[in-house]
């Protein structure tokens, strides 16, 4: 292993850093592995933090400015923690033609968040995708990683409500238990 890589230690004690370290080792800590490593960080932790970017920068001997540049250039990388549930509305051409904008408006109305935002209670994130490649099922939406096709404004509202209600229900039962 390269000596420079050994001198830095991960930003925290979190064991998950071992996954990231493993990925960097597999690529011999080569600077060109940057995007692959950022993918691993996001897959492992859910999003990219400043600490993570700095750690990757030092480990791969890439300027922090470049790491930040790459992390913010690509849409796939996010520096905001995602909500407990995610709803990704596809806004590709086929979905657009079949009313993706109406779906987006429906979610925005129901959950009272705009695209790219997460509800205050951290319950739901609303995102958009350029194209999922599920054009045969347009309009398509991804709920918690599962693609669902031929969505209507009614069905998306219903699904969004379950995400929101569930959480409210859970908090209600919690408070009841606390009372006991």
């Amino acid at each position, binding site marked *: 292993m390269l000596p420079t890589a050994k001198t830095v230690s991960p930003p925290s004690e979190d064991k998950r850093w071992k996954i990231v370290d493993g990925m960097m080792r597999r690529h011999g800590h080569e600077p060109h592995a940057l995007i692959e490593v950022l993918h691993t960080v996001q897959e492992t932790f859910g999003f990219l933090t400043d600490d993570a970017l700095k750690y990757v920068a030092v480990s791969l001997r890439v300027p922090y400015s470049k790491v930040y540049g790459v992390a913010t250039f690509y849409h*796939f990388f996010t520096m905001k923690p995602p909500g407990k549930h995610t709803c990704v509305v596809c806004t590709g051409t086929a979905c*657009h033609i079949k009313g993706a904008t109406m779906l987006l408006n429906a979610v925005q109305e129901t959950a009272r968040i705009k695209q790219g935002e997460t509800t205050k209670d951290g319950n739901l994130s609303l995102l958009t995708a350029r194209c999922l490649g599920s054009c045969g099922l347009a309009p398509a939406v991804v709920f918690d990683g599962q693609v669902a096709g031929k969505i209507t404004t009614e069905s998306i509202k219903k699904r969004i409500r379950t995400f929101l209600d569930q959480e409210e229900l859970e908090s209600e039962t919690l408070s009841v238990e606390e009372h006991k």
Partner: protein
Amino acid sequence: MNQDDLANIAAQTKQSDNRYDHVIKVCVAAGCLSANADQVKTQLESELKQRGLETCCKVKGVGCMGLCAAGPLVSADANEKMFQAVTPADASAVIDSVIDNKPAPAAIVMDSQLDFFTCQKKVVLENSGEIDPERIEDYIAADGYEALFHVITKLKPLGVIEQVTKSGLRGRGGAGFPTGLKWTTVYKAGAAQKYVICNADEGDPGAFMDRSVLESDPHRVLEGMAIAGYAVGANKGFIYCRAEYPLAVKRLRIAIRQAESNGLLGMNIGDTHFDFKIEIRLGAGAFVCGEETALIASIEGGRGTPRPRPPFPAQQGLWNAPTLINNVETFANIPPIIRRGGDWYASIGTDKSKGTKVFALAGRVKNTGLIEVPMGITLRDIIFKLGGGIPEGRKFKAVQSGGPSGGCVPEQFLDIPVDYDSLASVGSIMGSGGMIVMDETSCMVDVAKFFMDFCMTESCGKCVPCRVGTTQMHNILERISEGQAGTKDLELLQRLTSMVKAASLCGLGQTAPNPTLTTLRYFMDEYRAHIEEGRCPAGICHPVKAEAEVGV
């Protein structure tokens, strides 16, 4: 592994498949999976086991069967029987129909003689819907890797390139550059290290051909890349795949592992001196990375911004080494071209556009899904014969091909043959194969705005004409759709389109005005309705003037 081992695997696989009287194939590509195809497959298996029929009937997960809108799709016995929208509860009805020939409920029976199926000509998709994409044995049994063995044992690199040149194959990524010529350039470039890159960054909204090929028949792409590596003198390949396609990435990884452990990738392939390794690199959601120099920058770990050409990647590409970049579908065409010869391939299609093309048919059309047709078929045949026409008795308005770089083709051109040059002559492009059908419920100003919004967001920001030009054009289009624009804006829009087209650095900017240009050319009346009458004929936009008239 040598050629005899390959033949053995093929024979064994065929033999073990022949043991079964019936084979039920369940589509496990992304479209059908999202409609619970995996549960259908499990239910079929357990039902067969319960009835003690698992030795006479086999259930097999296969790649895309094409008609995604009717999924999950199930087919049996050489596709004589097909079923649509199958749920786990239908499992026993499917088995009754396949084994005992009992009629299945009308709701799940699909006519396998639909024009959608019979009018296709499958070359790239010949194995899609037939083989299990996660089993290399299945691919080998379908003559897989035969072409690679033929090439490395019997042909010289120039002999391979000769076949590809003869075939007349042109780049399937959209621009249509002759593949043989590209290979020759990389072959001639003198360098010790060369690379082969497969562009699987299918960023076009509305296109899913590459995803489907990777999910349904990943080995075909690997074989095509290895043949290319041998022909141009490269020993390393990269597949640059969208991270948004997790299933395609998973199946590619499985395929690479299987090929490596069978000695079909790696060192000394087929006991020859030919080495070829393939690695996957994940994209991260940047449309501009479909442009070859931006893609290279991204594989090198940087921001995906393009650079001026020349030097072309064929001379100076990845890490400045000569690099061959082809699209997924281009590589997928290579094994059949080698197996059956360049002349055979050249006999399909038109004079200047040979072979077949895979299209992703979507939008306002009855049969949405994936089709492969010979070049030269008319748009009308694609939309009304294979596609089954426009649903709900509505009227056809336009078909958009080529995504954000293409144009909208109106009804008067429906009878032009689909090939690179004819589409270009009406202001559109072949593109990678996305084909979106629009009916009278679509507003063409809104469509132009949609694509401009896409290009504006996806512009990498490196060159001014694209970065600023797309934003300005988007602003004007927005004003038009809101009813706030004047006739002067139209002139300005026209001027901007030609400026951005001429002055942008890469293909993204150079083609970004195309959707706007074609809608201006063919649907000027809709623009005028927005501007002069404050009215959106399709009722999509809400021009303010119109609202005042109705008294809202």
